[in-house]
């Protein structure tokens, strides 16, 4: 969605801050999300927890995108061990 709707590169999309839902109305946010989002979600009744750093618990999304030109772009997620390689 970050790539197709907001025009990000795969690497930008992969590094983009994430959320995870918890039980009932709980939601964990990566700390890089704007503080206005924390306040805004709390105001909507979400029980917000902020997680600092790049943690494995938010997954590790890998992407390869083929552009119309045939060029390949990649995203490798540093939340876990990951790498993109050309051959």
């Amino acid at each position, binding site marked *: 969605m970050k790539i*197709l*709707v907001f025009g990000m590169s795969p690497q930008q999309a992969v590094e983009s801050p994430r*959320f995870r*839902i918890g039980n*009932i109305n709980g*939601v964990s946010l990566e700390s890089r999300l704007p503080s206005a989002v924390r306040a*805004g*979600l709390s105001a909507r009744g979400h029980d917000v927890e902020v997680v600092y750093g790049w943690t494995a618990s938010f997954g590790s*999304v890998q992407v390869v995108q*083929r552009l119309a030109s045939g060029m390949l772009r990649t995203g490798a997620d540093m939340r876990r061990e990951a790498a993109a390689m050309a051959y």
Partner: protein
Amino acid sequence: MLSRAQDFDAHEVEWGTPASVQCQGRTVHTVKPNSQGIVLLQMLSMIETLPLAERSNNSTQLLHERVEVTKLAFADKDRWIADLAMAEMPVAPLLNEQYINGRAAQLSASVAAQYLPRFETISFDDVGEGPAEDGDTIFAMVVDEEGNAVSWIQSLYGSFGSKLVVPETGIVLHNRGVVFSLQEGHPNQVAPGKRPFHTLMSTMITDASDEFEMAIGTPGGSG
């Protein structure tokens, strides 16, 4: 011992067809149940019903909507996802446009819904230990210059899975069985010869002319 030698003899590798939905003028393909893949497809389809042109990335409104869409899709995940070979499971109806629109209409623009996982699994207290957070899953993809692509995931679930190794081959057996439901009558209720619900989703996107555009995946981080 829950599994006997003849259970392994009976196992056959399966060539499946993916489940797919339309999204942003493309087609998104992923793995059918017993994978939770269709939950991702439901989420994408529900997000497509939002006025995305009016939403900015990382805005409170869009984050709220994405959180709520996740809860709606996870409720179906908890209720339905199971081994298709052993359980009645409405895959097509869960991805049907009318159904998706109806679910998306339940989303409140301003109030967080209450999500309670209704998926009673084997408690880790019962089996002594749970899978470690670091787990034992790897996701890999490869694309060549002609646009041939592989989106591939391998998982033992917990670190070293069940910690049982087949001596002849060195294959380590997984421990996904802890994700079976113990609830009587649940589609994912534990049963002989049945495969458990799992979270592995190899995903691929093809463009409007059905050519490869994107491979995407993650070795964990459900939520």
